């Protein structure tokens, strides 16, 4: 298992390198003298001093040719030095480690809830495709699918305003209780849940439909099993496997959705950190944030691969691609 894990991990190194290259290139390849511009903006914002800027340019390898600069920046990255924020001079690593838990606090429960609600919907729809329940549920899910998340979030804000549910921030002032925190998370999590719910239930439905057409389901029916036993014991387990793969892909999608949800609900997570960094042209934070976001996806894929291998004895990690 350890060996497999190591091999899988090694396969991801090129992609990880690619991610850092993109993070570096995005900032370097900006049209015009973007760096001078960013420096100026940061100075005007009252954040960085000239010494800090010079230090940053050296640290980020921005005075060097592209590849040399990239190598130098990568070296710093590996040593865990992501530089300091232009805005308040705090280490980027600290900023990221404060923001990530907030985003995970949103993403993981909504992932869990999304699956919890999607599995029954997928089973009911997939067991009898084209039936009344399937058509109704499919229509509802289709509607959820095409709604912009910022709209859903704003509608929730409008609906909840003045009804006791908090609509801004992570905590009420001076209140450190867990209940208060949970109350603040209700709306953001609801927002993120409906999206993953739509994706997961559709995916499960289609793999259920596929499974119901397989020979082993016909065999199960032929030997006289009840319909519920056929669906739950034969078709479902095989369909659930495909949901594990989906897990790795939904996590980054939720990180992305968090950009909007965190902006609307004023939550200090990765999305808000990135958004504020973009507004303030806070380059070190930007580079750190997209590198971390890319790496998170890889971790998601890795975790779902491991779960898959654990759940299905036929699959070995050798030779499988994400």
């Amino acid at each position: 298992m350890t060996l497999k894990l190591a091999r899988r991990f090694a396969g991801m190194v090129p992609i990880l390198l690619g991610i850092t290259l993109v993070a570096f290139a995005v900032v370097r390849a900006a049209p015009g003298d973007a760096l001078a511009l960013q420096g100026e903006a940061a100075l005007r914002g009252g954040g960085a001093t000239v010494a800090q800027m010079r230090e940053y340019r050296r640290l980020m390898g921005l005075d060097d040719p592209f590849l040399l600069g990239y190598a130098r920046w990568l070296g710093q990255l590996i040593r865990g030095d992501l530089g300091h924020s232009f805005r308040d001079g705090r280490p980027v690593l600290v900023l990221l480690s404060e923001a990530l838990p907030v985003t995970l606090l949103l993403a993981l429960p909504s992932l869990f809830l999304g699956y919890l609600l999607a599995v029954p919907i997928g089973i009911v729809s997939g067991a009898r495709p084209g039936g009344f329940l399937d058509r109704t549920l499919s229509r509802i899910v289709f509607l959820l699918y095409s709604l912009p998340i910022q709209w859903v979030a704003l509608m929730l804000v409008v609906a909840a305003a003045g009804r006791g549910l908090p609509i801004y921030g992570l905590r009420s002032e001076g209140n450190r209780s867990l209940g208060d925190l949970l109350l603040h998370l209700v709306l953001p999590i609801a927002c993120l849940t409906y999206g993953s719910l739509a994706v997961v239930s559709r995916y499960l439905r289609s793999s259920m439909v596929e499974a119901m057409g397989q020979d082993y389901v016909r065999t199960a029916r032929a030997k006289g099993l009840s319909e519920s036993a056929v669906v739950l014991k034969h078709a479902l387990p095989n369909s659930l496997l495909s949901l594990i793969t989906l897990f790795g892909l939904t996590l980054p999608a939720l990180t992305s959705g968090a950009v909007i949800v965190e902006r609307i609900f004023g939550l200090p997570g990765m999305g808000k950190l990135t958004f504020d960094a973009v507004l303030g042209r806070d380059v070190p934070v930007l580079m750190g944030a997209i590198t971390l976001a890319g790496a998170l996806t890889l971790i998601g894929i890795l975790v779902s691969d491991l779960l898959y291998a654990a759940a299905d004895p036929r699959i070995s990690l050798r030779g499988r691609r994400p």
Partner: protein
Amino acid sequence: MKGGVWSRFSRRRRNLFGLGLALALAAQALFADFIAGDRPILLHKAGKLYLFPDGLRVGPGDWALWPLFRHGPYTIPPLAALRGPLPQPPSADHPLGTDNAGRDTLARLLHGARASLGVGIAAAAVQVSLGLALGVLAGFLRGWVDFAITRVAEVLLSFPLLLLLLVVQGVLERTTLLSTMAVIALTRWADTSRLVRAEALRVREMPYVEASRALGSSRLRTLLRHVLPNCLSPALVAATFGVGSAILLESALSFLGFGAPEPTASWGLLMADGFQDVLDPNARLLVLLPGLAIFLAVSAFNLIGEGLRDALDPRAQGAVAPSAFMTSDQKRAL
């Protein structure tokens, strides 16, 4: 073949409904200037005829043909003309109210279809052309070309989409509709290229490709005459779903302030305006309506996409093909 696809597509009412809705929205976007505007469509002044004249007054003896609804999407009324605080609630003059600069919401909604559909369709076209070309090359040539293209696509697909787009747009000195379209297309081609590559890998092993090779066709001819045309259907489906997801991405970026620049009429920007006064009941329509418009446009293209997918591949009837899932997953990435 063509007829078969159309007859399978048109058999379902909802496919036709989606197509009709998309066409209606496109027509509305094209003719927005005829529907809502504060310039005359035609002005006859001093014996000359002007089309959409700017800054010309209609004097006595002139005649003009006006749009149905006489408010422009960009016109900010002079302060003296304002009655009551902004944003204004619906009134006889402004049937859907105004935004917080006093601009008419209905006019901005109608003109907003241009930005959304324009960016959506252009981005989808560019991203699918790129993805089709690179995917076919990767699948047909294999070797290092395949390796390079696949790796780049994998890297692009590892980023949470909106985060990457936000950062790229943020680094640009100023964002425009064109840059929004470009960054969406340049990050989203990877999706299409993966699907097309898989199809090309399958097609290149087909007997007719072997036959073409055996007849002595050059590799280029085999590629263009036999492999490429047979990889078109996944690309076509991806293009349709791509329009919907590009519309959602544009609206999200504009909502965040890094898409369509002010004062463009864009559904995302309208929502951002509404967000500023989200607790003001007068701003509710400003949030509600653009969202519904986006919803209509996205579902129209998703309906067409699902219909096309089923019509092009009858075996996958009703199933969520990997294509649909990936696009929708990325779309959810909003």
